[in-house]
C-alpha cells in the first residue's frame, strides 16, 4: 500500500505508512540485505532481525482544538516515535542524523511531508537506550494535521 497523503478517515495508519515509506526511500541502508529483510519497520521486531533497523511507531495523538463552532474539523497533533537500532553508537548517531535531516528539510510548501498534509514538524525529545549488543536512539516527533 502506498500512501501519498494523510486522509482524515485513516489518519493513524496513513501517517505511519507514509513516514515508513519516506524513510525507506530517503535514508541510506548501511548494509545490503536479503529481500525478505526490512530496513524500516512499523513495529518493534518480534523475530530475529539484522541490525541496523529503524522502527516507526505511533505514540498517540491529541486534539488541539476545533476549526470553529459550526465545524466538525479538528486540529490534531500526531505523535510518532522513530527509533534507530544499531550495532554501535556511531552507526546509531549517523542514521539518526540522516533521519532528522530528512524530516527537518521537509517542512516547507512543496516538500514531501507538507504535501502529505503534515505541518509544524516538532522534535519533542531524543533519548539513548544503551543495551549490551544494541544501541538505540528514540526520537519523539509530532506534526500538526487539520482533520477536515
Amino acid at each position: 500500500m502506498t500512501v501519498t497523503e494523510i486522509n482524515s478517515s485513516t489518519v493513524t495508519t496513513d501517517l505511519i505508512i507514509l513516514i515508513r515509506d519516506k524513510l525507506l526511500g530517503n535514508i541510506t541502508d548501511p548494509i545490503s540485505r536479503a529481500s525478505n529483510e526490512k530496513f524500516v519497520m512499523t513495529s518493534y521486531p518480534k523475530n530475529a532481525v539484522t541490525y541496523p533497523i529503524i522502527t516507526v511507531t505511533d505514540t498517540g495523538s491529541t486534539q488541539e482544538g476545533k476549526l470553529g463552532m459550526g465545524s466538525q474539523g479538528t486540529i490534531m497533533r500526531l505523535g510518532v516515535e522513530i527509533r534507530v537500532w544499531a550495532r554501535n553508537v556511531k552507526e546509531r548517531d549517523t542514521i539518526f542524523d540522516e533521519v532528522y535531516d530528512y524530516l527537518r528539510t521537509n517542512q516547507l510548501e512543496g516538500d514531501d511531508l507538507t504535501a502529505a498534509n503534515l505541518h509544524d514538524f516538532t522534535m519533542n525529545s531524543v533519548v539513548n537506550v544503551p543495551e549490551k549488543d544494541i544501541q538505540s536512539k528514540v526520537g519523539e516527533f509530532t506534526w500538526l494535521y487539520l482533520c477536515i
Partner: protein
Amino acid sequence: MVKVTGSTGKAINVHMLGVGEVMRRMRLAKKEIESGADLGVVKACAFIEEEVKESIIGNRAERKSVDTGEFANSIEFTKTGKAKGVVAPKKKSYPNSNQTTLDIALLMEKGTSKIAPRRHFGNTEKRNKAKVKQIIQKEIEGGLI
C-alpha cells in the same frame, strides 16, 4: 489631572478618578494568580505522581512494571520553583544489582530490543493533559473570586 484644550480654545481640566485603586487591585490580582498557579501546579503534580504510580502497578492501560515494588515507590514529585514541579523516580540502587530506579524508568518507558515500551510517563501525560489544566485553572480562578 490632565489639562486639555477645548473646541473653544479654553482649557479643560480632566480628572481621572480611581487610578490608584485600579492599580492596587491589579497588583492584588497578580499576586492571587501567581499563588493560585503555584498551588495548582503542586496539586497537579501530586495528581500526576499518583497516576504514574497507578500505571506502574498495573491499574492503567499499560502493562505493569512491578518486581520488587522499588520502582513504583520511587516516583515522587519535587517542587523546582514557583509554579514548577517535576514528577520523576528518585534515584535508588537495587540490592545485588548495579541498576538504579532511573535505569529501570528509562528501559520501561522506551523499551529495549527484548522488552516492549510501557510508557508509564508518556501515556500518563497524554491521558491527563486536560485534567492538569483543569486543576491549575480551578486554583487560579478560586483565588480571584
